[in-house]
């Protein structure tokens, strides 16, 4: 499953580069962000039937891209797996419900390394761009 998401992500990156008039993109696309969100899930969450991420409109003046992850759900239960915010300039993934909780795991870090390289972000540039999450003090 992880390889599947990595392949999708790589395809998204290629499309993004082709769209950029020869210049590297400085923002990731919504599809790339969605793939980052899906990769941030735990193995148990990714194994849920019909799990998917959908973008929803951000709060006013927010720099982040917001997603709800849902699954098949149960008759009297919730379809929501979680809500997440992605920084389009860095690829950082944050919880949209808990304060200052940055999502991380091995697969996500690997994808984030790739996307930051594609954006030609040096380590220092990344740290310059990195901000607090949407629910930080």
């Amino acid at each position: 499953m992880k390889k599947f998401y990595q392949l999708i992500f790589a395809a998204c990156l290629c499309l993004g580069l082709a769209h950029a008039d020869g210049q590297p993109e400085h923002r990731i696309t919504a599809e790339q962000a969605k793939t980052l969100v899906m990769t941030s899930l735990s193995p148990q969450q990714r194994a849920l039937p019909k799990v998917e991420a959908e973008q929803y409109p951000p709060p006013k003046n927010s720099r982040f891209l917001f997603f709800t992850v849902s699954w098949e759900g149960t008759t009297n239960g919730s379809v929501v797996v979680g809500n997440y915010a992605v920084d389009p300039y860095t690829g950082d993934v944050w919880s949209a419900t808990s304060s200052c909780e940055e999502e991380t795991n091995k697969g996500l870090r690997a994808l984030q390394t790739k996307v930051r390289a594609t954006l030609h972000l040096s380590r220092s540039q990344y740290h310059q761009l990195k901000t607090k999450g949407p629910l930080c003090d």
Partner: protein
Amino acid sequence: MEGVIDSALSATNWRVRENGPCAYDWLSASPEDPNRGYGSCLSNVRDFINAHGADASTIANQLGNGTTSAEVLATAGNETGWGGGFANIGNYFGLHGNGPAGTYYTSSNHTPVQMFSGTDTFMSSGQVFVGNVGRYLSPGMGQNPLGFFSILNAHGYATGNSGYPAAMVQNGRTRGPYTLAMACMAGG
């Protein structure tokens, strides 16, 4: 704006200020401890509580068993990212299936999600939530938020995430939705 909010909340035991720190007018009946440290009140959480706190209080009373408005608000905040997500279709509790205002089908897998319309979709979706989970609560359970969220977790909420109850009440550098709600309601 503040007048509208105060008017809307006059029947409840709480009040959140539009400007400045949040405040909570505790009544002796409240099982929550206002002296516990919950940190500062975040603006979007404050806005969410201003908009839905009165309804959350009603829903908590309907659930009974000591359920608090903070637990209801935290549940809805977590389900919607504090008013985003499926709140855009009037569904504040992640409710599966066909709703009174129709059905939203997710884009990729066509999962049915209940839609609600009208002036108070928090309350109308909350009524379905009460019907779904109320039967699983037991007396006094609401006085133990970890226990409350454990019951939700066992009955269709945050399926696949056994860490959900602890995450909801987490406090410290990362604060869970219940702690964020309490921060505003306790005057943080």
